[in-house]
């Protein structure tokens, strides 16, 4: 049986069926009847396969491996805390927390242990721009190797976030890169990418936006049209600006008529129409000609409550977060930070610093928290954890304490009240450095009533106090 052709013929006969292709003669099996011979051949072939030498792979290996990352890996306790947290998260809270968790790990100067990547797959897919190089490489590897494993939504969010960042840094370069790749993107993402040109919009974008008017998707054409209408000098821009300015006026008060106040008269009395009308205009454009210095405006506008959020938004577009906060704090019943987040404003268009500044400036003693924090989406607004200073101010503030007492009262008074989603929304954007303080603040609520929040804070606390980072060069235990 040294001739390999014999093996192939035998194999072929069993594969095709002996009724179609009888077995060739087999040395040593002459005395056997046909069924016994067939069974003997089957056994020989089977054992031959089981005794085969391992396959030589010279030159076949792809060389795939995860990139090096010199940062220390999470210590065993932090790894355990992270896996425990992930197991407790539902899809919605995972979506909310994933970028924050990954950003917190990065901010602590550490990285995920590569052996945990498969178990944290769902978390990583929601990680967005907070993913490190190793995690990105691993996700790419699994996406390429595992059919259906890639997440188009997650990829789109990544590309969108990356484009907005690039646009903030260098608007012209980002626009040119977009012009190169736009046609290959799906329609929904194309529309969002074009809409993102609102970051740093300038007349230089007009030519590209005009080409977008010929896009096959209506959503892209609409996004381009809206942006063209915001370009100074464009007829549509001038028309809108004139309408917006017409809503604002000046009145004088006091005995000497020296107190100047801003007036606001929405078109047709419709506040929502005004919100759309004001969109895209900076404060300086809107008040031009009214004779106010910007710093005088918050006081002058205090009497026109419906316009205050709109003016705050306009100030943000001018890059004046402190001025924006000054408008917000003049609301009669200020809710922090929901008033800001209820603005018709794409927070992603603002820089991280701007968002932090306006939040910090609008946190005053007078603000209150919504009891159940509905609409409280601080983490998404910040696109990462808040600054340590702001967090420390927040947990020391009266509004936070009042709100926390309200939640504790609800927990005590009703077993059916689930505080976990509320607390998680509140602590989601806390930086890891204040985890211990927040945990102490929540000590009155049993961990069993707040499993996700407790697991999240426990993980952040582990980041704050790593026991013994596992270095990349760590030798195996045995």
């Amino acid at each position, binding site marked *: 049986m040294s001739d390999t052709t014999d093996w192939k013929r035998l*194999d072929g006969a*069993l*594969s*095709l*069926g*002996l*009724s*179609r292709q009888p077995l060739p003669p087999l040395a040593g099996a002459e005395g056997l009847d046909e*069924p016994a011979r*067939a*069974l003997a051949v*089957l*056994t*020989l*072939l*089977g*054992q031959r*396969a*089981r*005794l085969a*030498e*391992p*396959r*030589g*792979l*010279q030159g*076949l*290996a*792809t*060389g*795939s*491996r*995860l990139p090096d990352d010199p940062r220390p*890996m999470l210590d065993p306790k932090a790894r355990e805390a992270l896996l425990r947290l992930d197991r407790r998260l539902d899809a919605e809270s995972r979506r909310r927390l994933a970028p924050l968790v990954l950003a917190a790990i990065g901010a602590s100067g550490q990285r995920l*242990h*590569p*052996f945990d*990547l*498969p*178990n944290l*797959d769902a978390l990583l897919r929601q990680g967005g721009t907070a993913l490190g190089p190793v995690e990105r490489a*691993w996700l790419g*590897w*699994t996406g390429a*190797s*595992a059919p259906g494993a890639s997440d188009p939504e997650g990829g789109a969010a990544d590309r969108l976030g990356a484009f907005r960042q690039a646009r903030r840094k260098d608007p012209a370069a980002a626009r040119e890169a977009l012009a190169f790749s736009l046609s290959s993107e799906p329609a929904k993402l194309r529309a969002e990418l074009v809409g993102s040109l609102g970051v740093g919009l300038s007349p230089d974008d007009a030519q590209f936006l005009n080409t977008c008017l010929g896009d096959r998707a209506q959503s892209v054409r609409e996004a381009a049209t809206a942006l063209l209408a915001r370009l100074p000098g464009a007829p549509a821009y001038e028309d809108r600006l004139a309408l917006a300015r017409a809503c604002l006026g000046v009145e004088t008060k006091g005995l000497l008529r020296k107190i100047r106040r801003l007036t606001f008269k929405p078109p047709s009395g419709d506040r929502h129409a005004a919100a759309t009308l004001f969109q895209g205009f900076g404060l300086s454009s809107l008040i031009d000609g009214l004779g106010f210095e910007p710093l005088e405006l918050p006081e002058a506008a205090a009497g026109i409550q419906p316009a205050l959020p709109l003016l705050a938004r306009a100030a943000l577009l001018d890059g004046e977060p402190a001025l924006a906060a000054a408008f917000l704090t003049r609301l009669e019943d200020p809710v922090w930070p929901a008033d800001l987040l209820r603005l018709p404003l794409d927070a992603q268009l603002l820089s991280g610093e701007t968002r932090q500044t306006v939040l910090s400036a609008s946190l005053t003693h007078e603000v209150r928290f919504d009891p159940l924090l509905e609409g409280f989406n601080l983490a998404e607004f910040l696109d990462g954890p808040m600054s340590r200073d702001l967090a420390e101010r927040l947990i020391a503030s009266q509004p936070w304490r009042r709100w926390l007492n309200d939640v504790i009262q609800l927990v005590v008074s009703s077993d059916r009240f689930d505080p976990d989603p509320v607390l998680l929304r509140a602590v989601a954007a806390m930086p890891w450095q204040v985890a211990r303080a927040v945990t102490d603040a929540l000590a009155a609520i049993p961990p069993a009533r707040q499993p996700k929040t407790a697991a999240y804070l426990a993980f952040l606390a582990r980041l704050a106090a790593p026991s013994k980072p*596992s270095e*990349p*060069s*760590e*030798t*195996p*235990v*045995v």
Partner: protein
Amino acid sequence: MLTLAQVEAMAPDQSALAAASKLLKPSAWPLLARDAATSVVWGEAQGSGSAPYRLMFDPADRGHKCSCPSRKFPCKHVLAMMWQFAEHPDRFAVGEPEPWVAEWLSRRRPGSGRPAGKPADANAPAPSMAALDPAEVSPGDPASQAQAEAQAAQRRARAEAAREASVTAGLEALDVWIGDQLNTGLASFIQRAQTTCRTAAQRLVDVKAPGLAARLDALPGALLSRPEPLRPDFLLAELGRLHLISAAWRRREGLDPALVDDLRRSIGWSVRREDTLNDPTVPRWAGEWLVAGTRTVVQPDRLRRTETWLTTADPAAQAPRAAVLLDFTPVQVGAGEAIPAGELFNAELAFYPSSAPLRALVAVRGPALATRMAPQGGASLVEALAAHHARLAALPWLGDDLLVAGSGRIVEADGALWAVDPDTDRGLRLAVEQNRAASPLLGLTLSGLAGVWDGQILTLLSASTPHGPWFADS
């Protein structure tokens, strides 16, 4: 309707009936139920263990099954349930069959139960409920006891002979079935695998060869789960292995006793744990054992098999390099407690007699010496495979085996991950299900690894890496 006379007629012996009479209290039965449509009855009998035994009975053809380890058919639990059904049918709640009852029904060949009125031992006096008078058999009478034991031994020997004859006939039929598959052609086997394997497995259950039945039942799933290019060789190996067992059974008189033990276990003879532990002749090895990893498989018979793979901590130790502890639990009960992967402990293992000892029991276990350890050091991957081949030569139908190597790399090639011997660049393909879990190992130099080798595919259990120990189940 079932009558007491029919129950008597089914009893294998008088003692089984006597034992059944002690189980008639309702408190011993957490569950008694019947299906109005088919008259099938089932129940749960509280035994000495934490989980009750599950049993069912089909009055239509007197078919029955019980999860207890009794070698009597029917056992005392089935007899007691039938007895109650005959006398107190009102104790049986009417309802839909439980999933485990439905599973049993689906696996049975209609009419496979033994007809009423034909006890297994035709020469023995017919068991009788009237004979249950305690005065008739005095437990304190040594002569009577000896006589009873001798009779019991005779009955066991006759039952054993009957089973062997049944298995012989069943394996001959198995060879015919394999021959039919060869005539039709293995290329088209996959299209008919599910149906034909299920039918053949049911026949093996009926001839009391449950081990082979389980193997055959699992064949279609195992075949489909592997990449297409590997399927032909896998099918050859599996069908060839079944024939090897069948052929060895016919020649068992001339085989080494250890190989006969292997053979009987492969076919489905169960060996009680206590018998192995109390047998002074079984091989035992004491030393430090490391849990290389665990695997859990749900078998077609709805039992969860938990495999705990052990390796000697010292590669140079004069002991088997590997051992596997097997635990079986009903799927509904939930997974039992396995020793965690990476635990190092002192233990004396008692190995089931075998020409290639692998399956073992923990006879004496000391405290854990360490946790989260992975194998390190020892032979190369190619040498480990050669050792497996030597074991395969000793036990030609050897199934899964543990490979332990002192070095290796994980690489991606030909659309799969491979564990590669760094000296020879020869590799063993990893299970495709492990692609994601094992991907962080890509490119790392491993200073030790352990995995279960099924002849084609390596299921990696643990490895020592520059990033620390890696475990498949963590």
